[in-house]
């Protein structure tokens, strides 16, 4: 089909779908009306039951913790997949040294730039860690903190230049961080099973409301998520950065090009 005939077909489909959407929109509970009983119950019960103030964290790490486990492994899966796809063409050998762009001189950076970027990177990473640590009390948590910490790595790259950055970032170490975080999550889930309790049951002391340590096992799960996310996104950034550098020594001779 040409794009034009697709649009005609889509327009015909829209003729049927738009009335259906309007019908559903009219029947839905109005925007801003009191919501589902499930959410209200969480808001009412969880602060007392789990001693945490951030209900989203409570849902993510405790009540619906298994969802988050699946989500973390989805990220791990995507990162592994992207790694395989990108590395497969580069060859496993070359992945420990920095790639380069031929013909482009390596510019020495001004000391001031390096310094500013180092400071900014440290501040960003510290902010990420803080967001992760306070996940039980204020907005944030392992996922957000992990992403912020990983994006701090980019600032480091701006300051240090690619070769130094690449020497600092070790793929296997990031993979270890990622796999280790995910494994920690699995252990948090399986630990209570050993004691004869349901998986992911909050068996640790719950701590105090608004305290840095509050929520019991959720703290462990939160840390696991932070590690896995930081490692995962770090690895992703690393692989994509490396991709912008590689001279195309393309090892795909098996292609059947007529």
């Amino acid at each position, binding site marked *: 089909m040409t794009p034009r005939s697709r649009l005609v077909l889509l327009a015909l489909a829209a003729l049927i779908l738009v009335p259906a959407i309007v019908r559903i929109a009219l029947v839905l509970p109005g925007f801003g009306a009191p919501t589902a009983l499930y959410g209200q119950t969480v808001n009412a019960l969880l602060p007392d039951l789990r001693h945490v103030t*951030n209900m*989203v*964290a409570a849902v993510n790490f405790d009540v619906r913790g298994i969802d988050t486990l699946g989500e973390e492994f989805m990220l791990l899966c995507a990162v592994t997949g992207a790694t395989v796809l990108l590395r497969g063409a580069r060859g496993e050998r070359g992945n420990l040294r920095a790639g380069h*762009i031929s013909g482009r001189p390596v510019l020495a950076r001004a000391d001031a730039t390096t310094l500013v970027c180092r400071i900014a990177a440290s501040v960003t990473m510290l902010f990420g860690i803080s*967001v992760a640590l306070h996940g039980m009390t204020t*907005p*944030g*948590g392992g*996922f*957000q903190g992990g*992403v*912020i910490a*990983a*994006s701090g790595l*980019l600032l480091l790259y701006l300051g240090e230049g690619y070769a130094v950055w690449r020497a600092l970032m070790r793929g296997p170490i990031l993979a270890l961080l990622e796999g280790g975080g995910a494994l920690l999550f699995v252990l948090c889930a399986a630990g209570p099973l050993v004691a004869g309790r349901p998986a992911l049951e909050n068996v640790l002391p719950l701590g105090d409301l608004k305290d840095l340590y509050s929520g019991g096992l959720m703290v462990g799960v939160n840390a696991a998520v932070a590690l896995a996310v930081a490692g995962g*996104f770090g690895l*992703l*950034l690393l692989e*994509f*950065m490396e*991709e*912008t*550098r*590689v*001279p*195309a020594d393309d090892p795909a001779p098996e292609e059947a090009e007529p």
Partner: protein
Amino acid sequence: MSGASDGLIACLLLAGITGLLVVVTRDPCRQVYALAGNGLVLGLLFLALEAPDVALSEIAVGTAVTPFLFLATLAAIATDRAQR
């Protein structure tokens, strides 16, 4: 009350407009910036919808990490094209 509500409406409309901008910006190099803008607007919308957790992750992912991945991809594609 009505001020907050107005902000919400504005955010919703802005989200719709920036979404359209992402689509109609056919040049991928410029689309990245539309994408980052869309991520930022969505982040603000989520703040207006009282979802600070989600806003934080949308801003971290939608305006920092995803656009960066797009930029890296485009750079890789440009490198590849230059070498042919």
